[in-house]
């Protein structure tokens, strides 16, 4: 006996297990980042003074990073769409592009962080930098985690396309949902930290 609805949708909910699972997980992630955003709001409202993001942080670089992530979201959904169209080579291409864009994001972040440290700006310097490093740091960890999983499905895990293409397509859809969420978090992080 196999566990039902791992690939086929359950008729009354219209979902397969993994899709429901990832959405529930993302709900918990909303609350995780929510906790940090709540801390940001709390600390900023209670502070006597608060720096403008643009004075301390590099807005052009972060804008570039925003475009990197948005593009990676497109390539990720295209990679799933390619599988739906049975175009495995396109899947490989788009997944590879997603990883490349994600790497670019990380590289930019690396330069941002090291530049801060170079100027003696650390998380401990003030509340703004503390919450900046924590929020973006946790986000970076989520990017890395996502990249590891995407890489797995790009390379060794891609074998499943031969044995169980529908299940594999679903897995890419699930990974994609996670990845879009990580993009979504950045869409809010960027204006809140850099522009306000």
């Amino acid at each position, binding site marked *: 006996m196999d566990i039902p609805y791992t690939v086929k949708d359950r008729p009354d909910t*219209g*979902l397969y297990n993994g*899709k429901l699972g990832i*959405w529930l997980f993302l709900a918990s992630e909303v609350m995780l980042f929510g906790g940090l955003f*709540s801390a940001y709001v709390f600390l900023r409202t209670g502070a006597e003074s608060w720096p403008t993001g643009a004075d301390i942080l590099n807005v052009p670089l972060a804008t570039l990073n925003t475009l990197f992530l948005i593009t990676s*979201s*497109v390539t990720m959904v295209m990679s799933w*769409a390619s599988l739906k169209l049975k175009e495995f080579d396109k899947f490989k291409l788009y997944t590879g592009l997603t990883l490349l864009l994600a790497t670019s994001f990380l590289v930019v972040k690396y330069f941002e962080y090291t530049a801060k440290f170079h100027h003696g700006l650390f998380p401990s310097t003030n509340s703004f930098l503390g919450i900046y490093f924590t929020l973006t740091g946790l986000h970076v960890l989520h990017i890395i985690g996502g990249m590891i999983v995407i890489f797995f499905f790009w390379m060794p895990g891609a074998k499943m396309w031969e044995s169980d293409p529908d299940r594999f397509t679903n897995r890419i859809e699930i990974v994609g949902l996670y990845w*879009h969420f990580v*993009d979504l978090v950045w869409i809010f992080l960027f204006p809140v930290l850099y522009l306000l």
Partner: protein
Amino acid sequence: MADLTPEEIKHHVKTYVIVFVALAFLTIVTVAISYLDLGVGASVALALVVASVKGGLVASYFMHLIDEKVTIYWTLIVTVAMFLILMFLPLGNMLAQAKI
């Protein structure tokens, strides 16, 4: 999603491209707005509105929320409610603190 035809997928792909352009545009918009001197309240409100539109586009089209099932909607509604509680109640608490 297991039942989409190739034509429907191709149609979705067109949508993805349009959404991408919109997102890139809105990114430029949000950066541009930040250079205007609008005062704290308006800046925050505008930034959040633009971010919400962008986020909404990502969720609706890339994450397929726009044709997702009721169960998912309910999960998200409950989550958003809890998120808002977490965002505003501690803040409300702090703002209403007795001044010693």
